[in-house]
């Protein structure tokens, strides 16, 4: 009997003009998203290849890899190769193509390839995260009221159906419908993207399938919401409600998150941070000067070690401020994300960041990796310099200038820091960022899925109770 009603519900939905229109729209959008993402992928890949060539030239350039010059460059290049993940989202908050120059001790990111509002860009996130929620809501928001109006709910009741059973069959039929409208066009889109970009990858195929699977509880949330709304008495109110809910989650929550996040976790202005950096450096340097009877500011050879130490620790103090600036920025971003996570759409995007190693999730690991690389490079530079007998071992930014001044006055043949070439120039470029293993990711995904699963349960319980009490006369 269940199968009979299930088949009836599915057949009715397939015959519904709304469904047919939505299905055609989804097919078109999935295909267009594959084409649009492929174009973006090619463009990003061209930029990536150009940057890679440029960096390879730098590595073979002796001026760049000379240890003394590296102190002044103080730069670590992070390159992230464009991936098929671009089909899911261009991650406009953090770029898909990360061409970052991470300054020693102060990793900051330069972003490329951003434009417009991330929400309405044509990719899988727009379709799965934003559009299908609305579609499921529109498909299901009159399911019960329609059966009530047509009298079929009463008829089925006479056949001895328990209301819960009717409700569950409705829910299952909508979820099957979701799979029907999503899976075939999504698979076609994925295959088309792989064909257009020549990036066939089993790993990414599984990731795309995983994201389709993960989208199910989000679709389910909107189905339950639609069923719940469909038990209301007023059709017009139901329409107003679904439009409001969709706008609330897609626009109001993310925009409010940005406003409230900035209020709850404020950061200083760029000028204030610049002043704080400068103060941190000069306060420390002055302190050295006072402690050492102005010897830190002296260019005489006997004071060089004190001067180097003063500069070094002053730079460290400044870097602490820079690090604090980065942490403030991250804290604010996390706060915005936390508030935005009220919206299922934002939750879905955050999960996709874990699946595809993108966005804020990736940023955290990128910072860890760059810090480790910077420490490793610094230690190797100091170690290599210590073996150079001509070096005065002055590891700070202005040392070369000091050395020139000293040479001018005292005719020293020594250099401030070694002029040898860095022995491991390949470390100057980071192309691989290590993130969680599969289990670690799975746990994080489950943690992020938990709220939407709980919301599903709450709505389901609400719908069941409301349906049991529904007056079907």
């Amino acid at each position: 009997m269940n199968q009979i009603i299930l088949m009836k519900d599915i057949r009715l939905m397939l015959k519904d003009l709304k469904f047919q229109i939505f299905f055609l729209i989804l097919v078109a959008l999935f295909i267009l998203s594959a084409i649009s993402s492929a174009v973006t992928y090619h463009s990003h890949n061209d930029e990536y290849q150009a940057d890679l060539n440029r960096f390879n030239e730098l590595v073979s350039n002796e001026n760049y890899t000379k240890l003394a010059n590296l102190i002044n460059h103080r730069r670590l290049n992070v390159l992230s190769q464009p991936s098929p993940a671009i089909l899911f989202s261009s991650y406009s908050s953090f770029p898909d193509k990360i061409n970052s120059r991470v300054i020693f001790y102060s990793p900051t990111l330069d972003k490329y390839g951003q434009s417009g509002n991330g929400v309405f860009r044509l990719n899988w996130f727009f379709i799965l995260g934003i559009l299908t929620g609305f579609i499921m809501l529109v498909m299901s928001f009159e399911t019960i009221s329609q059966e009530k109006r047509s009298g079929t709910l009463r008829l089925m009741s006479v056949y001895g159906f328990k209301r819960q059973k009717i409700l569950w069959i409705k829910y299952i039929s909508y979820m099957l419908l979701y799979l029907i409208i999503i899976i075939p066009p999504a698979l076609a889109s994925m295959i088309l993207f792989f064909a257009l970009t020549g990036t066939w990858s089993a790993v990414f195929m599984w990731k795309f399938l995983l994201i389709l699977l993960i989208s199910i509880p989000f679709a389910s949330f909107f189905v339950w919401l639609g069923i719940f709304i469909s038990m209301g008495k007023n059709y017009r109110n139901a329409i107003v409600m679904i439009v409001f809910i969709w706008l609330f989650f897609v626009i109001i929550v993310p925009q409010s998150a940005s406003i409230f996040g900035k209020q709850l976790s404020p950061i200083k202005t760029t000028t204030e941070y610049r002043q704080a950096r400068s103060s941190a450096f000069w306060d420390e340097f002055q302190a050295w000067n006072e402690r050492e009877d102005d010897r830190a500011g002296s260019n005489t050879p006997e004071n060089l070690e004190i001067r180097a130490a003063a500069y070094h620790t002053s730079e460290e103090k400044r870097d602490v401020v820079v690090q604090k600036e980065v942490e403030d920025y991250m804290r604010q971003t996390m706060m915005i994300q936390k508030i935005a996570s009220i919206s299922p759409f934002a939750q879905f995007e955050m999960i996709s960041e874990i699946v595809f190693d993108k966005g804020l999730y990736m940023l955290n690991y990128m910072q860890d990796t760059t810090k480790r690389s910077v420490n490793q490079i610094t230690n190797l530079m100091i170690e290599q310099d210590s073996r150079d007998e001509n070096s005065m071992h002055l590891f700070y930014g202005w040392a070369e200038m000091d050395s020139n001044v000293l040479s001018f006055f005292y005719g020293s043949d020594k250099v401030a820091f070694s002029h040898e070439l860095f022995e491991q120039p390949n470390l100057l470029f980071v192309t691989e960022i290590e993130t969680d293993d599969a289990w670690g990711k799975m746990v994080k995904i489950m943690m992020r899925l938990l709220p939407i699963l709980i919301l599903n349960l709450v709505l389901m319980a609400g719908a069941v109770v409301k349906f049991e009490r529904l007056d079907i006369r």
Partner: protein
Amino acid sequence: MLKIVELCKTYEDGILALHNVCIDIVKGQIFALLGANGAGKSTTINIICGFIPASDGDIWVDDISLKDNPRLMRSKIAYLSENVMLYDNFTGYQNLKFFADISHSEKRKLEKGNISENMEKSLSQKEYLTQILRDVGLQDDFIHVNISKYSKGMRQKVGIAIALVKDAPLLLLDEPFSGLDPKAAYDFQKLLYKLRNEGKTILMSTHDIFRAKEMADIICIMKEGEVVMTKTRDELESEDLNKIYLDYIEGRVAPMPLNMPSISNFVVR
């Protein structure tokens, strides 16, 4: 066939919809419930169908109690509402097929697979369902047309076909003539006669005094949730039902004493 004993219904807001309603219908009778809007006709049918629970009292269909076995009791009834809408995106045939399938499946469950060969065989045949639609008077041209294009009379015919396919001995009709044009009403009336002659019991609520007098074997008038008069066709033959109806509704005549047996007489142990 149908026994309603001391049926009461009080809504959550305190409104008394039914008070000690007692009705007894014998197999093969047409029983008409008359009354003004809000008299309790539809509430009575709604309780029998299980759309709303009774506050007190009980209902038996073929000695099966609503309280004891509501599912089995409902398997004995077929229901036709005032506005038969059905599934708009399905044709008349598809609507009938769906309800035939669930009816078939429900019977299988209740009778533990002991369903008659005839039913088993006939439901598997498209021709059987088509024939039922023809029997209730639906034109062949419309059998496979979406029901959204049907007139009210045609929908009523599909509704009655659904009731027939269920093969229930008791038919509950809520305002079945409301909104039908004279020809459709006449056709429908003939169909109900045919069903009665085949042994079906029919309980219908109606405002149509003329048709009630013409068709019903027993006529019952309800007022403010109570049965105020029950008379057979013979008792009413020489009387003006319209006047009687107005006398009761306007309170010019006191309610008849109801000669109903006590509830214990109906309990089958």
